[in-house]
């Protein structure tokens, strides 16, 4: 019979190997490529010489850094909106849905059965000049001409991303709310706390780890988002992820694209670390 430690090692070996091969190794490769000097396509036959040329180029181009800042702001907005909108859904599932919670949870997850691309494309139909929103506004007489700025704008990117992320964001909050011992709420009620007081002093703080998990789960990938901006963002909704995509694709400048990716990774990690340092989750939850 296998010992516990040996069984643990045996069980973790396949996922660890998988991660090492397909996550850690590519990440190391991206970092390594970012220190190559080529401005255009890389010739892998050339010797690997350490160069900071890509980083120098990035820091000498203010528009790249401004775009990173804009993308972080968009990601913050999307993460906050998605988390705030997801909270009532999770609350309803955890406290009000009772025996129908499973059914509602399945309904919540139904959008995942539809391709991400299709869900985003649906917003093009909603926001377009002849889309549902413009048609509605014109039919009720609020406008006589279609509003051009609904689609192909930063706002369209934010609205679409919030919509896409809400079901994802609800899940960690729901899990956190489910873990709350109902005895705490009963004790609060027995001690005279009203519904709002119980929510503010018991439910919300105890669900904060889930809320923060939702926030970061949305924030981190949104910083590097490129599919949604390329479909609904137009020239104004261009994000840092699109810039990286353009470096790898359009410009064929893999070394520059790798450096942009590494910079985004570092900035995101620093932001998350600072946020977690500032927000003492354990103290709030207790």
């Amino acid at each position, binding site marked *: 019979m296998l010992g516990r430690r040996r069984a643990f090692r045996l069980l973790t070996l396949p996922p660890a190997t998988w991660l090492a091969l397909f996550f850690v190794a590519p990440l190391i490769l991206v970092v390594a490529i970012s220190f190559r000097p080529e401005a255009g396509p890389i010739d892998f036959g050339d010797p690997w010489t350490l160069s900071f040329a890509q980083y120098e180029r990035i820091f000498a181009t203010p528009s790249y850094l401004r775009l990173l800042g804009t993308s972080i702001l968009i990601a913050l907005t999307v993460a906050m909106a998605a988390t705030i909108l997801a909270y009532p859904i999770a609350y309803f599932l955890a406290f009000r849905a009772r025996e129908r919670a499973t059914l509602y949870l399945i309904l919540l997850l139904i959008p995942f059965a539809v391709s991400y691309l299709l869900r985003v494309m649906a917003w093009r139909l909603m926001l377009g000049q*002849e889309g549902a929103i413009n048609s509605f506004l014109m039919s009720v007489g609020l406008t006589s001409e279609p509003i051009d700025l609904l689609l192909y704008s930063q706002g369209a990117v934010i609205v679409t991303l919030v919509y896409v992320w809400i079901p994802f964001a609800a899940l960690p909050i729901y899990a956190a709310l489910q873990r709350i011992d109902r005895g705490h709420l009963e004790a609060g009620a027995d001690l005279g706390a009203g519904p709002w007081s119980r929510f503010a002093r018991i439910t919300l703080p105890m669900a904060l780890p889930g809320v923060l998990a939702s926030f970061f789960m949305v924030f981190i990938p949104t910083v590097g988002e490129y599919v949604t901006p390329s479909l609904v963002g137009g020239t104004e909704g261009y994000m840092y992820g699109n810039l990286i995509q353009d470096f790898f694709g359009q410009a064929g400048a893999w070394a520059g694209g790798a450096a942009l990716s590494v910079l985004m990774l570092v900035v995101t990690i620093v932001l998350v670390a600072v946020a977690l340092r500032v927000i003492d989750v354990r103290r709030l939850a207790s």
Partner: protein
Amino acid sequence: MPERARFRAARLLPVVLVSFALLLPACSLGGEPNSLLVLEWAGYEEEDFWTDFQTANPETAVDFEFGENDADILAKMQAGSQADIFHFYTGWQQFYVDEGLVQEIDTSKLTNWDKVPDSFKELGQVDGKQYYIPWDWGFTSILYNTEHVPEVTSWDVLFDEAYSGHISMWDDGPAAVTVSSYINGWDETAITDEQLAQIEQDWIAQKPLNLHYWDSEYENLCPEVMSGEIWVAYAWQGCYASALYGPVDEDGNYHPEDAPPVAYAEPEEGRNSWVGLYGISADSDSPELALEFLDDKLAELTCGNAVTLFYYGCANQEVMDAIEDPVLIEAFGIDDPSILESTNFTPPVTAEQRDDWTAMWTRVKSE
């Protein structure tokens, strides 16, 4: 042999035979593998684009991998793509030869080569050797909605604030440099750093005028030209032809009566023209099959499909001469004998220009 061992061998034999049978087709027992990988632009994998080869070689597996644009296709080839054939456009011929990525073509083996005009053949030559086969071609000019825009006589209409929110430029750095060169009367093969800086500023100022930059002709240019959202666009003639034919219904019938009022400009600076070229990878395991594929691309039916279904010009002149459809005659300017005199053909670019121009465009987009 003991009974138990015989039983095991008897059980294993069918497994071994089945495995051998399954592996046999995958193994090369001499000769070329019966498969091709084509590095293409999205959309060109449609079977109509290689129908003659498919008919002649029904057993051959043809797979496609895709590049976003010329830079991406070159980058993929440089990164060791296993593609037997790759497709790119004029201006990029020299790079593949310089880097040993392409092999010379024996045109004596091509049955459709004599149908290709010499001017096209020359575009596929580098240092006097035929490395590429020309295939699709077309124009670039300004496609505009005549209901909102009076006659367009210059490329500078792309910078006209009167059409703000209804303009669409192609998402491509070298194209932006080309347009600016035409407008300013500069030689696009000799753009100076100062001129490139000016071009960058001009396109940054132009950026808010766009509805969006288009990157796929039939996905996010033509539909919005048809719907009337885009009034002025940098466009190829394919989109012009689509607009002239009008919307297509579920049964495949065109409705020209619902077509948007569009025209394709003949700017005073001249139109631009481009030609698509196919090369065979220097590392191809199937060069003979690849050559046959390219020969069949030039055949009448396949070339005809490119013209009638996708509204691209094709290098088979017999196919072009047979065009009778008035929409295609208009789109290709076939009834205008002087059209080529006022057309600028895309010149080759150097690696440095390519890198500088694409970098300039990323800066424009990130502003």
